[in-house]
C-alpha cells in the first residue's frame, strides 16, 4: 500500500505522472475560470449599495490573494517535507511553487491597487493588510533570489526552505490584519473579509474563479517541476532515453 505512494516521490516516476495530469488541470482551470468570470461579469448585480461596476475586479482580486497565501503555505510545506525526509522532489515542488506564488501575490497587489484607486481614492496606502501583502510578495522574491544565488542545488534547496519557513509567520497576519475593534478609529482601509454580506451570485462567481485559480496553479507548478526535474537529472540515464 505505502510502497505505491512513495513510488511517485522519485522524480523519474513523477515526471510521466505530472505529464498526464497537466492537461487535466488546464481543462479544469479554463472551464472554472471561464464559468466563474462569465457568472461574475454577467449574472451579478450591476450596482451595489455603495460600489458600482468596478467592484467586479473582486473575482480576480480575491482569487489571486487567496492563492498568494495558500501557495506560500504549500511552498513551506514542501520545503519542510524536503528538510525532514531529504526527498529531492519535494524541494523541486517548493521551487516550482515559488514562481506561481509570486505571480499571484503580484496580481493581488496590482488588482487591489486599481480597485483602491477608484473606490478608496488611492493606489496604495500603508494599511496593515496591504503592507503585509507587499511583504509576502517580497518573501517570494527573496526565496527565488536566494535559491538562484546558491549554485549547489541541494544547499540552495535547504537554505531557501528555512527562509520560507521564517516568512510563514506573515500569512496568518495577512488573514487577521483587519481585526480592528472599531473601524472608525483605526487607520486600515481594507474592509474585513466576511461572506455574510456577499450576495449569493457574487459569492458563487468568486468561489468558482478561486477554484479555477487553484487548477491553473497546479498546472503551471507541474509544468515547471517537470522542467526542474529534467534540468537536475540532465546526466541520468532515464532522461537521456527520453
Amino acid at each position, binding site marked *: 500500500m505505502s510502497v505505491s505512494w512513495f513510488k511517485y516521490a522519485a522524480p523519474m516516476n513523477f515526471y510521466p505522472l505530472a505529464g498526464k495530469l497537466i492537461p487535466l488541470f488546464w481543462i479544469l482551470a479554463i472551464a472554472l475560470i471561464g464559468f466563474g468570470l462569465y457568472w461574475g461579469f454577467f449574472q451579478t448585480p450591476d450596482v451595489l449599495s455603495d460600489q458600482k461596476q468596478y467592484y467586479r475586479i473582486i473575482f480576480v482580486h480575491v482569487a489571486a490573494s487567496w492563492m498568494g497565501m495558500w501557495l506560500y503555505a504549500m511552498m513551506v510545506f514542501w520545503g519542510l517535507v524536503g528538510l*525532514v525526509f531529504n526527498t529531492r522532489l519535494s524541494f523541486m515542488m517548493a521551487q516550482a511553487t515559488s514562481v506561481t506564488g509570486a505571480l499571484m501575490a503580484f496580481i493581488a497587489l496590482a488588482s487591489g491597487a486599481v480597485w483602491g484607486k477608484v473606490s478608496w481614492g488611492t493606489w496604495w496606502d500603508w494599511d496593515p493588510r496591504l503592507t503585509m501583502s507587499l511583504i509576502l510578495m517580497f518573501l517570494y522574491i527573496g526565496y527565488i533570489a536566494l535559491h538562484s544565488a546558491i549554485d549547489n542545488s541541494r544547499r540552495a534547496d535547504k537554505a531557501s526552505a528555512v527562509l520560507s519557513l521564517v516568512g510563514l509567520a506573515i500569512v496568518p497576519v495577512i488573514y*487577521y490584519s483587519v481585526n480592528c475593534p472599531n473601524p472608525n478609529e483605526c487607520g486600515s482601509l481594507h474592509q474585513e473579509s466576511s461572506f455574510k454580506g*456577499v450576495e449569493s451570485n457574487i459569492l458563487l462567481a468568486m468561489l468558482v474563479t478561486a477554484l479555477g485559480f487553484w487548477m491553473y496553479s497546479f498546472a503551471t507548478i507541474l509544468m515547471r517541476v517537470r522542467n526542474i526535474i529534467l534540468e537536475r537529472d540532465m546526466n541520468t540515464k532515464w532522461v537521456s532515453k527520453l
Partner: protein
Amino acid sequence: MKARQKRLIFVLLGVVAVIGASFLINKAMQGNFYKLYTPQEVLAGEVPTGQTIRIGGLVKEGSLKRSDTELEARFVVLDKHKNEVTIVTNKILPDLFKEGKSQIARGILKADGIFYAEEVLAKHDANYMPEEMKDIVTEQHTPVKDGVK
C-alpha cells in the same frame, strides 16, 4: 535517535517558533498600525497643529458642501461621541465618499481648528449587495452600535 527524527524535531521547533512570532505580530497589529486621530482628540487639543496627520471618522449627514466655482469641498466628520471637526479639501473625492460613511483624511490642522486635507480616502464595508438586499442583511446581522448612527 535517527538523523531523520532529529531533523523532524528541529523543523517542528521551527514551526512552533514561527507560530509564536505570528501570534505576537498579530497582537501588535491589533492596535493602530499608525496613528489615526479622532475628532475627540482634535477637540481636546491632543493633535499637533501644522504637521501632516490623519483624521478618521464618519461624514456627518447633510454636512457636505461643494463650492460652486472651485473644486473645494467642505464637510464635517463625527466620532462615536459626536465630536465634530470640519474638513476642507480641494482634491477630488473618491467614488465611495458619501455622507454617513467612514473616511480618512490626511492633511494639516490649522490654528483656526479647521483641518485642511490634501487627501481624502473613503472606506467601505464588507457588504457586496444591491441596495434593497443590504438593508435586510444588515438588520439581521449587525446591531446598530451606539453613537455611530
